[in-house]
């Protein structure tokens, strides 16, 4: 996959991910429009990226590329900004997205709150927030 990456570096005032350790390959992928998760040799799939497999304990489980699609497990429409730089965005939507591959991911949903539904299909896009990272943002399919 290679999903669209929109450059938001100029307009973004919110927190910016800082790639460190096990998360570096994930954030590298986002700059190319790739959503990566870890898939261990034992079969376990996980996100956020960690230095060990949460199933078998193997160190540094390798990354795979997600298809970038999933469903909304749940969501909330935020009327109070939770971080600096979000005051002008309210209301905005944060969802827990269940990727087709299994792992769940917390992410902004760029959608109309009035037609949102748990279980709806969504696809990933990216907002580039810094030279090092782009944030996954999901849109209705």
């Amino acid at each position, binding site marked *: 996959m290679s999903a669209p990456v929109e450059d938001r570096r100029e307009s973004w005032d919110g927190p910016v991910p800082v790639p460190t350790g096990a998360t570096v390959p994930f954030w590298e992928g986002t700059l190319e429009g790739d959503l990566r998760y870890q898939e261990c040799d034992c079969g376990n799939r996980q996100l956020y990226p960690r230095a060990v497999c949460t199933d078998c304990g193997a160190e540094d489980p390798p990354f795979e590329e997600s298809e970038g699609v999933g469903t909304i*497990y749940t969501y909330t429409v935020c009327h109070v*900004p939770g971080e600096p730089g979000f005051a002008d965005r309210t209301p905005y939507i944060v969802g827990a997205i269940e990727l087709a591959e299994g792992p769940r991911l917390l992410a902004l949903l760029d959608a109309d709150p009035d037609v949102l539904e*748990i279980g709806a299909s969504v696809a990933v896009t990216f907002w580039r927030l810094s030279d090092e*990272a782009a944030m996954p943002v999901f849109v209705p399919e």
Partner: protein
Amino acid sequence: MAEPILAGVAESELGETPDRNWLDNAAIATVRALEDAGCSLADVDGVAVAGGNDYMPALVLSEYLDLDEPSFLEGTEIGGSSFEHFCGHVRDAMTRGEADVVVVAYGSTGKTGPGRDRSLEETHPVDGFVRPTGLFRPPGAYAMAARRHMHEYGTTEEQLAEVAVSTREWASMNPKAAQQDPITVDDVLESRQIAEPFNLLDCCLVSDGGGAVVLVSEEKARELGVPEIAVAGVASTSTHRQDISEMPDMTTTGAAVTGPNAFAQAGITHDDVDVAEIYDSFTYTALVTLEDLGFCEKGAGGEFVSGGTTAPGGELPMNTQGGGLSYCHPGHFGIFVLIEAARQLRGDYEGDRQVDDAEVAVAHGTGGLLSSSSTVVLRREA
């Protein structure tokens, strides 16, 4: 196994304490709770502290109170359920003969104290996945879980609001409660939107303040001549921490594990429970915990809390001081559920504020983002 006796309880000033720091509030509550138990700082040989703004809170409070070489020190941080969790460790310590008088304390300046200003470099890598979403935590995280419950079980915003309405009824009888004016379901639904489905009145207060309880051995309790409120069961667990999307099933909390364990230790059933003090950081927190503790079927929490079941005069009096929604909420509300449970079992109140002949109480703590659960069963010995 020895059962610690909850011998004394107290709060510091609640609400706004701009001239106090977290430690002042914890220390004030500690001294008052010792006085309530009929003993003094000189008797203390154990300290258990969570919260505050220090990563070595047990050491800091021991120094502040100039304790004489305490033999039991505990500072495990599992958020709002820490104090219930401590009850088990205190039981173990007392069984080993390690301590006879342990203070469990908390202090905060959650309302007037300095805010936290952290950079992402200083925090956990998962924050890079969570904070850029702008999610207002904890309300937004609990709201997402509530939304999932509504989806799976048909729970309604009106039913969530019932929790706030019934706790406010209790608060109206508590002079220490920050909010005492009665409210209706409509008031909750019409209050300012925070994170859907939560409105302002679905969310706990933000307060300064502290609380403390004194746990003593059975021998010491007899010496002091206090009413014997025994810690009859304790259990803790966690399901996740920093990211609500890591919660395996957002409609089932750790209380589904800790409730049955604590009840079994105490040898009680739900029918034995006279009063429930259930962590209510949000309306949903109390609703889902009631389900998981087994007071109703899974998914039937909405129905259960409707119609005054948990209100004064109801079948299961809950959060009889007004809870975190109406009484106070300095951050780790878990200390206050123990305090109120003890007061109800001692029969400290008059009129409708007192649950008739309360002998068994459940005190439940929740920490993090619906992340940890600790259940304590307290029983008044005949």
